[in-house]
């Protein structure tokens, strides 16, 4: 079948280099992939067309790019299913500087991943024999260890788009691979030092929960779900002194006691009731809400049968576990 591919190209070696779009029509097998089509372009149309690829089987993680705006592997995307309005649009991966055509610079990606110490760090007394890890724990980790470091999640990350300092989905999923390993951390498997580090700015609490990385990941790692689990681990381990933890706890508290969200009190509780400068920073917004009739109710009424919601909280999450 003949397919038309619209490729975003970039040549750094010309005077005043600018990205530009170029259309190619190539013939590939009916069941061919987007990568097959791109390789065909390089072989038949333009030998200088640059892209990374190797295994063609979604194992090596070399060919991550944006196909019709969505990050993913070109070798795992069937061309026939990717045609939109007669064309497949291909761009280099996002959130990384372009070197040439579809080749991007992964230095920033590796810097972040390497911030996570890539070995188990047991604390406390050494066991007499080997460290024991349950089958369930290892099975749980197998989905995270499937990461092939392709960068699709980083390409799709909405936070990295506005803040390159964010640790990002790949590195945080990698961190979870260790914090969720029962052999890492203290005798209860709590990785306190890692969690403490990860609660700092640019860490776990900066994720905006947009699920772009979950959709982009070709291996089912679901980085955002790992980041949510990291947050739970951090709160469980006693790291409450962040706006993120305070926000989650205040939210949960409001729900437990009234059945719904008390928006008015959520903001001060999140930034900290004693954080005067931050609270003053919100004053203009509060005044603006008041003058426009947008202020949430001052008296926060409970929903009907709120006591039943409280009972569910007590049953599902026994109070001793809560702060």
């Amino acid at each position, binding site marked *: 079948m003949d397919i038309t591919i619209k490729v975003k190209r970039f040549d750094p070696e010309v005077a005043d280099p600018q990205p530009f779009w170029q259309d190619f029509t190539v013939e590939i097998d009916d069941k061919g992939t987007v990568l097959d089509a791109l390789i065909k372009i390089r072989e038949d149309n333009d030998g200088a067309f640059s892209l990374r690829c190797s295994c063609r089987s979604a194992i090596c993680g070399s060919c991550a790019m944006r196909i019709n*705006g969505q990050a993913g592997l070109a070798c795992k995307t069937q061309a026939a299913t990717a045609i939109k309005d007669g064309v497949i649009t291909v761009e280099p991966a996002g959130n990384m500087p372009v070197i040439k055509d579809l080749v991007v610079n992964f230095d920033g990606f590796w810097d972040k991943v390497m911030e996570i110490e890539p070995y188990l760090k047991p604390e406390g007394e050494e066991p007499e024999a080997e460290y024991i890890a349950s089958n369930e724990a290892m099975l749980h980790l197998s989905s995270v260890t499937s990461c092939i470091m392709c960068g699709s999640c980083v390409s799709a990350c*909405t*936070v990295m*788009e*506005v*803040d390159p300092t*964010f640790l990002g989905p790949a590195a945080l999923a990698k961190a979870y691979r260790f914090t969720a390993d029962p052999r890492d951390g203290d005798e209860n498997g709590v990785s306190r030092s890692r969690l403490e580090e990860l609660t700092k*700015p640019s860490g776990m*609490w*900066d*994720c*905006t*929960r*947009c*699920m*772009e990385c*979950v*959709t982009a990941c070709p291996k089912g790692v679901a980085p955002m779900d790992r980041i*949510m689990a990291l*947050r*739970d681990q951090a*709160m469980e381990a006693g790291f409450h002194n*962040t*706006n*993120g933890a305070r*926000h*989650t*706890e205040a*939210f*949960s508290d409001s*729900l437990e006691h009234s*059945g*719904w*969200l008390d*928006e*008015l009190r*959520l*903001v001060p509780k*999140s*930034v900290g009731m004693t954080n005067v400068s931050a609270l003053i920073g919100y004053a203009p*917004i509060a005044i*603006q*809400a008041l003058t*426009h*009739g*947008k202020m*949430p*109710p001052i008296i926060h009424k409970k*929903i*009907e*049968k*709120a006591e*039943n*919601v409280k*009972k*569910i*909280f007590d*049953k*599902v*999450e026994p109070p001793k576990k809560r702060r």
Partner: protein
Amino acid sequence: MKYAFFPGCVSRGGCPELYPATKLICEKLEIELQEMPAASCTGAGVLQEKNELLGDTLNARTFAMAEALDLPILTICSTCQGVMSQANHRLKNPEYLAKVNGFLAEEGLEYKGKANPKHLLWVLIEDIGLDKLLSLITRPLAGLRMAPFYGCYIVRPTDALEFEDHPERQTALEQIIETIGATVVDFEGKTRCCGFPILTINERNSMAMVSKHTLEAKELGADAMITPCPLCHLNLDSFQPKAAAQAGQPIGMPILHMPQAIGLAMGLSPKEMGLQRHIVNTKPLLTKIGASA
């Protein structure tokens, strides 16, 4: 048609204009809304950070209440929709459902797994029909350029949202914009994050997201953005002046709740739609469609 109405927290809190606007257009569409005064918040994905089972149990409780009324659930918030859809997706597992029902037994509730929560956006297309909506349009928003802004939870993850069975959901907002007579401004930001979830955690990043999307829509000539998510509305409208200050340039992009845009096209007044409650001035927009406050 009659629905069990799940308005969510924000339409009765930080975006109080959404609730009455929804009621008014539903009246015209002959959609009967029955409140569920004992239904709780969905957890909004925040409670789920701490305890997913707890969140799923609370949502199953709401689903069971709607089942008892024998009514489908109608939501008006992308976040509520997404969180409910995700919970419902997990509750398809019979063992998990049985476990969750165990927690509901004391209240005399049981979720049988039949709920199908739907955002008004989907209800309009799938249950009511765009023809019916079109028949009620008396003041088409002709000449108005509108940029859709979905909100993350109504576009991801696609399996829980059943996009495969309902491919029309991918372009639902564009279809509404066209039906009410406006022109769609397609833009990259339409399925991205508004930044609201990190507002109190990393305000700088949150504001950078607001300015990025609103400025992109502005550059493409949009007169307004339209959203089915009140949380997106809060960030994109209420915090737009702050985002503009951070970006160092004026933005002035009006953000309409989807029901407000529909209401205006049905001839309802800007006041009835609660536009006076908006932070970003909507007057230029209203002048363009010949609607006076």
